[in-house]
């Protein structure tokens, strides 16, 4: 039986035979994943260009890239410094990029410093992520007006200007691939997300300067990105230090990328350039201090829902929801209605947080009434039940939840504490009786 929107009404995918269980790890090649090989609808995939060709460009080459994307009708979104943080804004020149800026990150701590370093990408990640380009923090869903007992609904016309993301990190690209499964990989895709994502152009910037809170190496999402069209970028940049101006190794990840790279005016990359890239990435990986054992965390958390560490972390967590706002994969949302004085009703969709008391509200009250329950929900969802729901981990190791937590709760430390006493149960002191 087909539903009203034409998708088949699903009959009983029951627990125990979950069709979504993709197993452990990031099941990147699962066929319902949404990737660049499926999104070039306007460009037929004809292998005319050599995707393995790589180039080296200077900063002027990046400006030519911005110009080429603008000429193709893209809105170019890149990193800029605003209000003491690296954030994403529309950029038209490399002059707007964070030249010489460096970030200092620790649990509950983020500071920017500036020096005369000519590098444009010598920082890690800021509080914002590409999530908001495809899933805005707040958007109008529809507007309804009524006259003569007839209600008329209008939907906002989508802005069809495609987005070119300039410089998202490999971990942020991994975050988008997670969101792709949520909003574009299910039976009912979000048309706004799907269309904007499908038309987007991604210039990923490999990371040579991870922050103190990063753990992408544990999650397999950085600091570099692999070759190949399945990875999901159009072009991949690596900022190579040199005696004066930095150079950029440019690798091609799609036909569209191959077309654009022609206009960047680079010279073919030499083995020395790849050696320089290896050095950048090796150094970055070496600097990453935090670790999360991703190999067994899914089962570890599922087995430790009563672990005493939840009491410990609940005593520190403020349930403010900052971690969910900065997370590049947190997708919870909701709608709310507002009525104008003239009687026009507008329904907006906005991000929600599982740390909000109302998030789990049913008629008898909230299902998760305490911070204990809500922190456990967030962490077990992110690292464990996300696999069940979407066939991948919900964590990409960007470290934002650690940096932007006002009390510095560290997801890697919480997991390590549970792992260190796997199977522990709280000790309750009661006056007699056997709890078992």
């Amino acid at each position: 039986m087909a539903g009203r929107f034409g998708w088949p009404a699903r009959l009983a995918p029951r627990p125990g035979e979950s069709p979504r269980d993709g197993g452990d790890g990031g099941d990147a090649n699962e066929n319902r994943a949404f990737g660049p090989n499926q999104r070039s609808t306007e460009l037929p995939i004809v292998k005319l260009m050599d995707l393995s060709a790589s180039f080296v460009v200077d900063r002027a080459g990046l400006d030519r890239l911005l110009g080429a994307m603008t000429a193709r009708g893209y809105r170019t979104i890149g990193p800029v410094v605003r209000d003491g943080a690296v954030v994403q804004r529309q950029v038209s020149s490399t002059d707007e990029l964070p030249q010489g800026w460096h970030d200092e990150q620790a649990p509950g701590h983020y500071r920017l410093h500036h020096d005369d370093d000519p590098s444009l990408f010598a920082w890690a990640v800021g509080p914002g992520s590409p999530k908001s380009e495809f899933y805005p923090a707040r958007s109008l869903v529809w507007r309804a007006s009524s006259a003569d007992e007839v209600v008329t609904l209008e939907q906002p016309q989508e802005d069809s200007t495609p987005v070119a993301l300039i410089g998202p990190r490999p971990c942020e690209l991994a975050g988008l691939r997670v969101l792709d499964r949520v909003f574009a990989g299910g039976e009912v895709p979000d048309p706004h997300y799907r269309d904007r994502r499908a038309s987007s152009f991604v210039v990923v910037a490999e990371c040579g300067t991870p922050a103190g809170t990063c753990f992408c190496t544990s999650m397999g999402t950085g600091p570099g990105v692999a070759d190949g069209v399945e990875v999901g970028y159009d072009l991949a940049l690596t900022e190579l230090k040199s005696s004066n101006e930095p150079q950029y190794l440019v690798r091609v990840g799609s036909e569209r990328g191959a077309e654009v790279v022609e206009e960047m005016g680079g010279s073919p990359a030499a083995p020395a350039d790849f050696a320089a890239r290896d050095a950048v990435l090796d150094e970055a990986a070496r600097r990453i201090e935090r670790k999360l054992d991703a190999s067994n965390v899914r089962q570890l958390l599922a087995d430790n829902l009563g672990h005493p560490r939840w009491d410990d972390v609940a005593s520190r967590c403020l349930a403010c929801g900052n971690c969910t706002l900065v997370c590049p994969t947190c997708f919870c949302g909701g709608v709310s209605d507002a009525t104008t004085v003239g009687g026009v009703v507008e329904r907006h969709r906005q991000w929600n947080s599982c740390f909000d008391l109302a998030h789990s509200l049913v008629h008898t009250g909230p299902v998760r009434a305490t911070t204990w329950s809500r922190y456990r929900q967030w962490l077990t969802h992110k690292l464990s039940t996300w696999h069940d729901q979407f066939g991948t981990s919900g964590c990409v190791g960007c470290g934002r939840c650690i940096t932007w937590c006002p009390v510095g709760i560290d997801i890697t430390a919480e997991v390590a504490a549970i792992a260190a006493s796997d199977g522990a149960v709280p000790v309750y002191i009661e006056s007699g009786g056997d709890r078992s």
Partner: protein
Amino acid sequence: MCMDAMLLTEVEPLLNPLTPVTYRVVARHVETGDVVTLSLEPTSGPSPFSFKPGQFNMLTSFGVGEVAISISSAPGAPGPVEHTVRDVGAITHSLCTAAVGSVVGVRGPFGTDWGVDGFDDKDVVIVAGGIGLAPLRGAISYLVDKPGRTGRVYVLVGAREPDQITFPDDLKRWERDGAVVKVTVDVPDSRWWGAIGVVTTLLPTIDFDPARTVALVCGPEIMMRFTVRGLVDLGVALASIRVSLERNMQCGIGWCGHCQLGPLLICRDGPVFDYSAALEKLISERER
């Protein structure tokens, strides 16, 4: 984003799954003090959505909000589609007090269903607690009316008080048409001459063959857990028991994250589930 500068287009064709279709309230029936059944017809267009018993819709009261409500009529039944709403909050209050002739929004149907076409030769034991009868009502009517069914239908209903017994006319009708119907209340009043006690006390009073029985259960989670225990004690296989779960549902299509229960998104994977040890563990897991 500047709202005034935004171009708006009329919804045709319907693009966004979050946008409802307008339906008119053509009848409003008060079931109990705080439970109302709304009969809805599309404001335009030929026919309403098709659905299976156990599925739900997202109903919008314009200007108040949207809430998940079970479809309480039977599929294929003549007349408008019915939804039964209990007045427990701002949105449900607005729906419960919606006047005949007013317009509401409908999205759906969503979720899994009771699978009522899958067991024509089996006895069906239906156990409902309180408003939990609403998502079962369409299934019961469908099973009672379905030609060619050889199994019997048992309807066991528990209500807190006699005043809170929903669908009394349907209970009589189902009994007249061959179902075994039993009702119990937790707290009787002076006019109550029926059974007293929780709904599980009705289980041993019916004569059914557990080996060829399917059970459909909906009510508070603790009631469902104990009902399952009672059914299993009588010999019903765990895999032959289905329950309908409730969580906060805001989208119906797996985008909003509100209805999570461990690995499950209730709107997408449920609300109707085959009972299992794994499901029992999920709904028994302690929250604080």
